[in-house]
């Protein structure tokens, strides 16, 4: 690391980061005092990657001393990666920096530190004039999981940026306050952006509020498949038997991921799905028959065996294979009926 050429020293630091050997840390801390900013920048980044808390104080000192934007960015980022609680006050100073990039990285870093002291600052950042800051704050407030943020995140569901609305929806789901159900339902039904409707469905699945059931059933017919898929998943989380029929209908969806999500939801609902799934084995659509067979296999109820045996004779291989897999999943009770079929052909 004594090489006079700054590029050599920077690259050596980066290489030490790739090696990931903590024996390099004392040498890297020494190099953090390098006279060249590009070397400090590289070393700060590597110290964040190596994850040794001994680097916290030297990084704070570097941050205090530097005037270079890139060194500040890499140092703040490293302090975030190290979850450096000692650095909170130093990071907070940069939340209102006039440079947008530094503000962004400080907001992200504060979220990564994950300390509750960050909450008031994140709430303030949620209403910043810069879109990217609001977007980060909306996400970070979810990771901090503090109910104080709920009313502000609900307000952020009306933000002009779709990323803020989307991140706020997810955060409300993570925090888990049912106070958010109605505003999230509005988003599912009315937001113009599919990604927002998608994440709002996911959030409603996390909240498990029965009030969301009817809107989620409506979302099963959304024009975007991500929304239909997450609506099915959310209904699986709610687990109500009244959603069996709408979910069975989704086994026919033109998009494979939606069909699979509907099947998994029916499996989560469990026994109340059995009768409709057995009936679905006779559906005209091969995808419905296939997904119904797979679901019955996952439910492992021997009541489905005779209906599944018939599907071993389906004209489509995918249905026959799904029925066979289902019988394998059901296990021991399937053996004799299968043997009986072979005996019947002789």
């Amino acid at each position: 690391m004594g090489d006079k050429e700054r590029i050599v020293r920077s690259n050596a630091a980066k290489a030490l980061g790739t090696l990931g050997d903590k024996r390099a840390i004392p040498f890297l801390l020494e190099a953090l005092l390098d006279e060249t900013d590009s070397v400090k920048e590289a070393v700060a980044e590597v110290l964040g990657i190596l994850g040794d808390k001994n680097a916290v104080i030297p990084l704070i000192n570097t941050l205090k001393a530097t005037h270079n934007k890139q060194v500040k960015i890499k140092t703040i980022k490293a302090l975030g990666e190290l979850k450096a609680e000692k650095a909170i006050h130093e990071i907070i100073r940069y939340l209102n920096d006039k440079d947008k990039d530094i503000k962004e990285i400080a907001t992200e870093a504060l979220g990564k530190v994950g300390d509750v002291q960050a909450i008031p600052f994140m709430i303030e950042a949620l209403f910043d004039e810069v879109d990217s800051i609001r977007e980060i704050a909306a996400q970070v407030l979810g990771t901090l999981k503090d109910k104080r943020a709920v009313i502000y995140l609900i307000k952020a569901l009306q933000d002009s940026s779709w990323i803020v609305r989307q991140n706020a929806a997810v955060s409300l789901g993570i925090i888990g306050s049912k106070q958010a159900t109605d505003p999230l339902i509005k988003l599912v039904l009315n937001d113009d952006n599919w990604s927002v409707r998608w994440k709002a469905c996911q959030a409603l699945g996390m909240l498990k509020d029965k009030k969301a059931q009817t809107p989620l059933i409506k979302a099963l017919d959304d024009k975007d498949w991500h929304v239909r898929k997450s609506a099915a998943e959310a209904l699986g989380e709610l687990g109500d038997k009244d959603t069996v029929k709408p979910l069975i209908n989704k086994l026919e969806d033109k998009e494979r991921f939606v069909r699979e999500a509907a099947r998994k939801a029916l499996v989560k609902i469990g026994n109340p799905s059995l009768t409709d799934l057995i009936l679905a084995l006779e559906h005209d659509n091969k995808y419905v028959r296939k997904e119904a067979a797979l679901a019955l296999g996952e439910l492992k109820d021997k009541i489905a065996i005779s209906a599944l045996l018939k599907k071993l004779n389906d004209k489509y291989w995918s249905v026959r294979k799904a029925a066979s897999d289902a019988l394998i999943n059901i296990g021991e009770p399937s053996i004799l009926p299968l043997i009986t079929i072979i005996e019947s052909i002789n």
Partner: protein
Amino acid sequence: MLQNNWTPESLEVIALALGKLKDKRALSPLITLLKH
């Protein structure tokens, strides 16, 4: 010709299932299928 409408395509997945279920009672029936 197979009886009871069981096609070779059906027996293919039945053999697969019996193989995966790993039960000794399936030995003789599987040998029967082997001779088909």
